């Protein structure tokens, strides 16, 4: 078993892709995210780690304004994508979400065929010129989602009839199919076996060449393996944010250390 290896490739830590300043999120009266500042770099994988319920998903959902759909959720502060405030009135959340794709924590395939699940994004964004094109996109995405072999014979079976892990990979493939500039993945490998996990991690690595990826994970190994930057959340606070190597080898905050060494949860 080779979990402990920390993959490290040459990365050019380019410009900031997303910058968040003073972000506060409330669910009704609950203060879920407390004054978080973070800069997410382009062509980089950023990992959000932290104990369950600390606000990782919440913060992630702020980045493409998915929180808009929760009535009681209120977001304050400033989040910029490529220097543009995404909470600006003029911003069309639809266009934002096309750029900032998302894989949700709970797999949520559409009640449609596997093919239609994948083809959905390309269709609405007009990414395919014709049927052959679309077929190609679907196949490519399913391959990238490491699920092609399992479903290639049942592309027209419903996506809801897949196993848990298959659904998760389907959702990853679905998100990848729209070719977003930033991909937010909320625990994308939670239901995957090691091999599938590895394949997804390879995908993430591949995506990093052109895009920015933010991944929420509970597996320290995974964070260490795939990310270049890591943010540690605790009770709604961003406790520490820095290079993955530094966070895992030399955490500045003692809470980070406790978490990484398995003392707080």
């Amino acid at each position, binding site marked *: 078993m080779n979990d402990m290896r920390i993959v490290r490739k040459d990365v050019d830590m380019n410009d900031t892709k997303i910058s968040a300043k003073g972000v506060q999120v409330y669910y009704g009266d609950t203060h879920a995210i407390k004054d978080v500042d973070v800069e997410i770099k382009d062509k980089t994988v950023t990992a959000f780690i932290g104990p369950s319920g600390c606000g990782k998903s919440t913060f992630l959902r702020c980045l493409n304004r998915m929180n808009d759909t929760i009535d009681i959720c209120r977001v304050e502060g400033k989040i910029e994508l490529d220097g543009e405030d995404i909470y600006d009135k*003029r*911003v*069309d959340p*639809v*266009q934002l979400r096309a*750029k900032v794709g998302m894989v949700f924590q709970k797999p949520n395939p559409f009640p449609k065929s596997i093919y239609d699940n994948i083809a959905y994004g390309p269709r609405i964004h007009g990414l*395919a*010129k014709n049927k052959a094109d679309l077929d190609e996109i679907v196949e490519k995405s399913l391959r990238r989602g490491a699920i092609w072999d399992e479903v290639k014979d049942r592309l027209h079976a419903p996506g809801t009839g897949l196993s848990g892990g298959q659904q998760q990979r389907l959702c990853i493939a679905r998100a990848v199919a729209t070719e977003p*500039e930033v991909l937010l993945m909320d625990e994308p490998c939670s239901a995957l076996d090691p091999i599938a996990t590895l394949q997804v991690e390879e995908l993430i690595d591949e995506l990093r060449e052109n895009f920015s990826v933010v991944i929420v994970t509970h597996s320290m190994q995974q964070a260490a393996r795939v990310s270049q930057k890591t943010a540690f959340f605790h009770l709604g606070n961003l406790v520490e944010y820095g290079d993955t190597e530094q966070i895992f080898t030399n955490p500045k905050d003692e809470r980070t250390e406790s978490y990484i060494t398995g003392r707080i949860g």
Partner: protein
Amino acid sequence: MSDFTADNGPTNGTAKTSLFTQTARTKRRNAAETRFKVYGIGAIALGLFFLVALLFSIVANGIPAFKQTFVTIPVELTEAKLDKNGNRDPADLAKVTTFGYKPLVTSALIVALKEQGIEIPFAKEKDVEDILSSSVAAQVRDTVLANPDLIGQTVDFRLLASSRVDGYFKGRVTRESLVRDKNLDAEHLDVADAMVDAGLMKTSFNPAFIFGSDASESRPEQAGIGVSMIGSFFMMIVVLFLALPIGVAASIYLEEFAPQNKWTDLIEVNISNLAAVPSIVFGILGLAVFIQFAHLPQSAPLVGGLVLTLMTLPTIIISTRASLKAVPPSIRDAALGVGASKMQSVFHHVLPLAMPGILTGTIIGLAQALGETAPLLLIGMVGFIASNMPDGITAGFLSPNSAMPAQIYEWAKRADPAYYERAWGGIIILLVFLMTMNIIAVILRRRFERRW
């Protein structure tokens, strides 16, 4: 929506675009979005517009029905006419019919007019009686029979004016329109005006319209919707207490317990089909089953309620099944997984989640039942029926009665235009009744609504 847009190819991922500037495609999509939303608003606005238009015409037409013109005059209850034997024997008193009372009231009116110095512009003084409703004789007679001691005294009575006089004060009748009318002459209106001036006649709110009973064709001024409202009330009780539980129970069985086979399909198709059966056919069925076979009384709200129950069931079943279907299976799994029985999972989890849809079905089904006339035609609830409030609950279910829509339908058909106004007034009351019923269901429904 077409699947592909070949015109401007892929737009994502290639050139960086600002969030503030919308790409052509986004613009198009957003335009579609706006259109879609506008359609939605338009749809609702259109629906509400129709509602307002309908309500407006209903209210405008119906409001006058709530007011009525009354004449207050003293009537001398002459013993010589009412109790020839002078022994106050009820049996003897009852022998004097309304035809005997009529002249009494007429002369009282003449006396009252003369006292006030109002000129009676008719060759035959008696013709002035057309100012009064033909119900007055019965009113005086009832009072006397209820209290024979009044005989010999002069008693003040508040009597209904005839519908034409009433219509005059409501603007429905004019002197010109009376020229060819043999029921009333323009001179009557002069007298009426004078009576108003003298304080003998007054148009005021008429609770009898809301609480009273139907009257015959010739006395629109006396007719009220109260008794048929009671009829509707008892019918709705029957419908609510039968259709809702039976409908929900049937849906639960079909959706949750019935084995998925041809039989269930047959039942399902059958129920949808029942919804398309014309309501009058339910009347045919009701006549055959409840009256001719089960010997339930004719014209009874109980029978009406049973027939309407059968008619409403499909509506409730269809909506209930649809909402049961919409409950995600994971909820059922969760309950079964902690060892709940199927029955428990349905009653504890699925049913509450399906409640909004069930209540919607109930609202719509009851509204339909409340407004339905055709099936009542065949079981004897349309016509000239209720003339008395039922005394007691059993009588409410069993003694002959009509229903609000049937009453309104009858009124709308009657010749005297005064009934037309009452029909609209009746519709107002029907709608108030309906909304009261709905509000309860709507409040309940809001408590169950939650998206998860």
